């Protein structure tokens, strides 16, 4: 660019008065000397100041020229025949992608309902693996599935797969949350430029940055006590935009004039105009500032600049004068007036013909409706993405290089998670007469086998970009920590199986550096001997503590890093029962490993990062680490299914059918401060936390709070049953649910449980109750069950025991077989 060396190209103030006073040359106390020194200092100061302004304005100009926010996209919906998807769900997707209804959906981003489906045309889109051209598609639905997918053409052709454009879910913006869509001067329609110059700065191409008459007028008005205003050239406006302050003083005006002059010295008119077109502030979308005509064109009309009609150009140019006052969405009357003034100006300057002007004046504003999206509708997830990116990219690159970031967020799952949290918290508060809005919560949802984060809700007001409880709160996890203890036991099948009796009698544990520890069960009673699976199902603290101490506190806590928990819990036995804080997202990582047969897949929020040029920069690879052997994890899964089937989470049946075989764990902390549920279906892992921000008791157990949100959410999502493949070293053996003695397969009095081969009881007892045609019975008849389980479910279990409903029982009997095959 221009040389940097000339520090003060602007004429310095009038030559100093020094030469006029040579006489005082040698006298010390001559006032003239001081004048000279002062003048010199002033001169130096002024040129220093001008130099400073010069550097500042050029930095701003160079910096802003290319500052493009990173764009963050959610997952692209993949559609194929047979996919579980309803028309309503698909249209929700189309609308969120900004498609408009049109009886002839031939134009990109339009759709039309047909008898059994929908017809639409996709947009061109550049994915991380290359461009995908717009397609005209016909889709039909039947029985909650996609039944037909065809590319529309001379003859319709079946398509194997259609990848929709990914929804834009936010951006990482430069500076003051500025968003823009960069345009080159050549791409801007001439009428727009002509109109802009006609209305804002007619002498733009001839002045040198400032308009002396305008300045004079402004000066006069100021001195005569009127408002400081007007007289700004485009160049001055650009300068103003760089340093957004609303301050209006003479000095500021002076600075602005100087900077405008400096800008014009360094840059051509076209460069200045192009930057202006991209820089000018044209609207406010909640937390996001709309800068430049490129983005404004989409923001107001959902079309690129080159497809705007005269009245739309007039509206955009009209907004320059006051984006808030003339906001066509908030103040349509004012907006329309302003637009029409500009239209008349366009006709007056021959940008359009009179006839065109008359036609345009008759047109409505034509602004597209859109819910104010703020910086992102999913601030919690975006925070996670931003944080992961910060590990690999410099902040200024993230905010200024126009990166395109493809993430794993599934808006459909996200909305179900948000809705469930909001709805259930309000219901709970109402039912329990809590003060409204005292409960808070967080949700994380991931895919079971690929570890992708599909949803993250950081609080019940999901749009509010405040404290992200899913990521940053660390609440004691309580019983969510127990599966690690039980897995450690089950990894030693010679000593521990699901039916191993555990000791649930009073425990006083002495440990150096900590007070004596006397764990209590939730219901403050002890259960003597309980089967291992029962102790987990009912979340018995004392039995778990004894088991953990037997196995070794360090041995168990040292395992946490393998499960992705880098935080180190205090080395005390109480940590066995979850007396340490974790964020919901960390818990999700831990349970993902249980859900995926002992393979840990580091949770991912980002798939690819692509440069503004379209060049792929980085793939976030799917990695898998073996953490636990599949056999013991399979057995643990059966025990965690017991939690839902017969333990603390039986109320899950209010939300999901028993056939889903959900596996999970409730967590409740001291004085009911935290309510947790972590669990999984065949295709999703989810963690929910509920509590209060002030850490006061929430009054909720894991089952009465978090679990209901979990269930409410999953109920509304396509869910697959938990069906882990049975590892080779596992066998199903029928045992007595209370005594644990082995029966022949099919004995009605027994239940089938998984054992690591060789660990099941060897001796078979005679079957007391005869044989069923189908193998095992799964009726939980464990006496201790009544202690914790909600009364209703206990009653249900009892009615099953007294076997009036044979058919239902038959169904229930099957589940284990169905489950594990």
């Amino acid at each position: 660019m221009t040389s940097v060396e000339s520090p003060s190209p602007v004429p310095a103030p009038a030559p100093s008065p020094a030469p006029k006073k040579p006489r005082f040359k040698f006298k010390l106390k001559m006032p003239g000397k001081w004048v000279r020194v002062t003048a010199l200092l002033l001169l130096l100061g002024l040129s220093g100041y001008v130099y400073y302004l010069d550097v500042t304005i050029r930095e701003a100009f160079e910096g802003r020229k290319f500052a493009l926010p990173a764009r963050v996209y959610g997952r692209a919906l993949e559609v194929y025949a047979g996919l579980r998807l309803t028309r309503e769900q698909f249209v929700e997707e189309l609308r969120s992608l900004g498609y408009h209804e049109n009886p002839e959906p031939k134009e990109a981003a339009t759709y039309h309902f047909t008898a059994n489906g929908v017809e639409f045309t996709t947009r061109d889109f550049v994915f991380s693996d290359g461009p995908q051209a717009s397609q005209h598609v016909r889709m039909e639905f039947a029985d909650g599935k996609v039944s037909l997918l065809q590319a529309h053409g001379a003859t319709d052709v079946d398509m194997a797969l259609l990848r929709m454009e990914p929804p834009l879910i936010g951006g990482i913006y430069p500076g003051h949350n500025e968003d823009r869509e960069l345009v080159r001067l050549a791409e801007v329609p001439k009428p727009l430029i002509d109109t802009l110059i006609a209305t804002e700065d007619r002498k733009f191409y001839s002045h040198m940055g400032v308009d002396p008459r305008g300045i004079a007028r402004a000066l006069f008005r100021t001195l005569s006590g009127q408002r400081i205003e007007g007289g700004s050239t485009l160049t001055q406006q650009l300068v103003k935009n760089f340093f957004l302050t609303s301050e209006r003083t003479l000095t500021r005006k002076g600075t602005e004039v100087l900077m405008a002059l400096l800008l014009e010295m360094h840059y051509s008119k076209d460069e200045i105009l192009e930057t202006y077109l991209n820089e000018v502030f044209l609207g406010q979308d909640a937390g996001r500032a709309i800068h430049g005509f490129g983005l404004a064109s989409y923001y107001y009309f959902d079309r690129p600049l080159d497809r705007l009609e005269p009245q739309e150009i007039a509206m955009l140019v009209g907004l320059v004068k006051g984006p808030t006052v003339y906001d066509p969405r908030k103040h349509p009357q004012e907006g329309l007036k302003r637009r029409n003034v500009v239209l008349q100006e366009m006709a007056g300057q021959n940008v359009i013909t009179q006839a065109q002007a008359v036609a345009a004046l008759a047109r409505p504003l034509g602004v597209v409706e859109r819910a104010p999206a703020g910086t992102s509708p999913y601030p919690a997830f975006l925070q996670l993405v931003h944080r992961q990116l910060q590990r690999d990219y410099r902040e200024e690159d993230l905010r200024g290089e126009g990166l395109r970031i493809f993430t794993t967020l599934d808006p459909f799952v996200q909305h179900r998670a948000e809705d469930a949290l909001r709805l259930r918290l309000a219901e709970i508060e109402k039912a329990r007469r809590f003060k409204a809005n005292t409960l808070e919560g967080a949700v994380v949802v991931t895919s079971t086998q690929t570890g992708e984060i599909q949803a993250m809700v950081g609080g019940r007001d999901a749009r509010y970009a405040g404290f992200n409880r899913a990521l940053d709160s660390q609440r004691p996890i309580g019983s969510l920590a127990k599966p690690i203890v039980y897995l450690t036991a089950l990894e030693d099948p010679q000593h521990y199986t699901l039916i191993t009796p555990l000791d649930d009698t009073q425990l006083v544990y002495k440990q150096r550096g900590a007070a004596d520890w006397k764990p209590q069960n939730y219901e403050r009673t002890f259960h003597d001997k309980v089967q291992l699976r029962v102790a987990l199902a009912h979340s018995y603290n004392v039995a778990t503590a004894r088991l953990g101490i037997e196995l070794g506190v360090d041995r168990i806590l040292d395992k946490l890093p393998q499960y992705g928990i880098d935080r180190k819990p205090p080395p005390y036995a109480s940590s066995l029962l979850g007396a340490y804080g974790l964020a919901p997202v960390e818990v999700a990582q831990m349970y993902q490993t249980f859900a995926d047969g002992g393979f840990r897949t580091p949770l991912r929020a980002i798939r690819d990062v692509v440069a503004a040029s379209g060049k792929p920069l980085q793939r976030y690879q799917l990695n898998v680490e073996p953490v636990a052997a599949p056999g013991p994890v399979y057995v643990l899964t059966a025990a965690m299914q017991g939690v839902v089937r017969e333990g603390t989470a039986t109320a899950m049946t209010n939300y999901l059918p028993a056939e889903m075989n959900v596996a999970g764990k409730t967590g409740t902390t001291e004085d009911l401060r935290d309510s947790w549920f972590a669990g999984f279906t065949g295709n999703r892992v989810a963690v929910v936390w509920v509590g209060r921000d002030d850490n006061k008791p929430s009054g909720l157990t894991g089952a009465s709070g978090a679990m209901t949100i979990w269930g409410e959410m999953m109920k509304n999502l396509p869910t697959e049953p938990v069906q882990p493949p049975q590892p080779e070293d596992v066998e199903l053996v029928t045992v007595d649910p209370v005594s644990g003695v082995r029966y022949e397969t099919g004995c009605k009095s027994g239940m089938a449980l998984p054992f690591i081969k060789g660990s099941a009881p060897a001796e078979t007892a005679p079957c007391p109750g005869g044989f069923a045609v189908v193998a095992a019975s799964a009726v939980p008849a464990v006496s201790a069950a009544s202690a914790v389980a909600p009364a209703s479910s206990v009653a249900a279990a009892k009615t099953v025991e007294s076997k009036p409903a044979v058919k239902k029982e038959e169904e229930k009997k099957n589940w284990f077989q169905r489950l594990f095959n």
Partner: protein
Amino acid sequence: MKNIYAWLPIAALALLLAGCEGMKTQPSATTPPVPPVSPEQQVPPPAVEQPPEAQTPPPPQTPQAVAEASIADLGPRQPASENRAVLALLDGAHSASAAGKREGAEASLERALRIEPRNPWLWLEMAQLRLAQGQYAQAITLARKSISFAAGKHRVQAEDWKLIADARIAQGDSAGADLAFRQAAERAQQAKGE
């Protein structure tokens, strides 16, 4: 002076040649000295030992040869999925791989896995990709994950074990590789009986 200038082009040419030389040798220096892994979508080449059958006591076969022969014996694979979308993505992954675009192949495989996350063939394909990328430990883990989804499906298990063996060879663990080859042969036998 003049002479020096006259020499310049020659020197430059020499430098250029030297540079080219370096470029030529570079790739062979960086590629691991590991035998290239045969893309498994084709039937593996007839194993080394397939002499006329009538011959007297067949020479002791290596576990690798046995494994490869018994997998070859199973004939071509069945389609990896019944879902056309998955097959289309798999085709896409194969052609991207063939064109040397491994990242593209990876992206396609991941898309397929999102549709069928419990399809052991897809996890095997992912393992093969990692093997080709030289990420041997990941390849082994992914093959194990494939096995975990392949209860009762011996054909894919056999190929998983063979891949584990190949990865172990690449890691320099020939004893471990032999164990895995034996597993592969055993699964292939079981698959034959199905």
